[in-house]
């Protein structure tokens, strides 16, 4: 979570409201977002088993589903 003010409280409240169950990591400085060239939220980054970034963006349900399906298909 890219959050600069009261990061932990904001992140936990946000995760609670939106039922985010997975690990929530805090990027308080925004440095990690900058390292990846992320310019807004929400943005999804798909990473393959070799640690290579395969997609950036893909935030609509249809886009995300397609991106994940493509990646899974390629790996099997």
């Amino acid at each position, binding site marked *: 979570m890219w959050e600069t003010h009261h990061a932990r409280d904001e992140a936990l409240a946000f995760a609670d409201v939106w039922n*985010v169950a997975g690990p929530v990591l805090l990027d308080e400085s925004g440095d*990690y*977002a900058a390292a990846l060239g992320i310019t807004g939220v*929400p943005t*999804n980054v798909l990473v393959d088993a070799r640690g290579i970034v395969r997609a950036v963006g893909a935030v609509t349900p249809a886009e995300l589903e397609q991106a994940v399906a493509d990646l899974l298909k390629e790996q099997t």
Partner: protein
Amino acid sequence: MVAAPRLGAGPEAVAVDSTARRAYVACSRDNAVVSVDLDQFAPVWRAEAGKEPIPIVLDLPSGRLFTADARSDTVTVLNADSAARVVQLHIGQGAYPAGLGHDPERRRIFCGNTAAGTITAIDADRLEVIGTIPAELGAGSIAVDSERGHGYCANFMAGSLTVFDTETLRPLGRITVGEGPCKTIADPRADQLYVAGSLHGTVLRLSLATARPLGEIRVERAPVGMCVTPDGSRLYVCNRGAGTVSVVDTATGSETHRITVGNGPGDCGIDAASGRLLVSNAGSGTLTMVDAPWLPGAAKPPTHPAVGRPIPQFALPDARTGEIRTTREWAEKRYVIDFFASW
């Protein structure tokens, strides 16, 4: 781009007074409003608002600014010239006021209350609450067609618009618009109502006269803010997820190009005197001023530069446990990182 002055944390929305050469920006994370000189590109004053002001409206006849302060359940009223606080109105505990609408003809301000699912009507001169209109969950952004005296409140969670009479404050109906309506603006001269759907990256166009859909415009990730030029020929759409603004030709209903702005653009306005586009960037804390925004600039590469490269290493604290988590834990796994923020 002409300038991008840094204003503070979480600039979410901007109001423009071209005659006075001022822009006014609601900085949600600083609980403040900042006034910016449009010619010097520099802040002029900063005034305290309530907690987390998100939208801002300038009422030109009274020279007053209104902010809806989501986390203090207030509407703060400031003198736009002096920055003095005029009054702070309490909207109702837990209401989470997150959107504003303005009917200058009838001297009314409307406040969309996200958690309460209601619209609060405020007399813009007497600065009193004069009524509450039922809406739906996620009530926020409000567009007003002053010519017909109709208001349209976008209900984010309900996927609808609540239509109401801005004079009598009576509900007039409901329009289903699909998931995640986040921002709505009206252009009565062009008979257009625009509704940004942030979840699907689209802007829906409807006829104000008939309430019928006219078409859908595909933009970029998470459109959350919009403004239309004074002549109605162009629509600018802030894509919060992409750090861009989509420029739409309203005659054809299609996107002509995109402008790269700051991180997480929240909303935008036009300086009618210069034609410049002003964009408040919630993520980078800046106000981007774009000269001649109707002209295409350098195109973004079709593929994000990170694609095809190794993921940068991270070592970041877990919000729940405080434990430092690293890239190594996810080695040899396929995974998705979802960047999100509460701003």
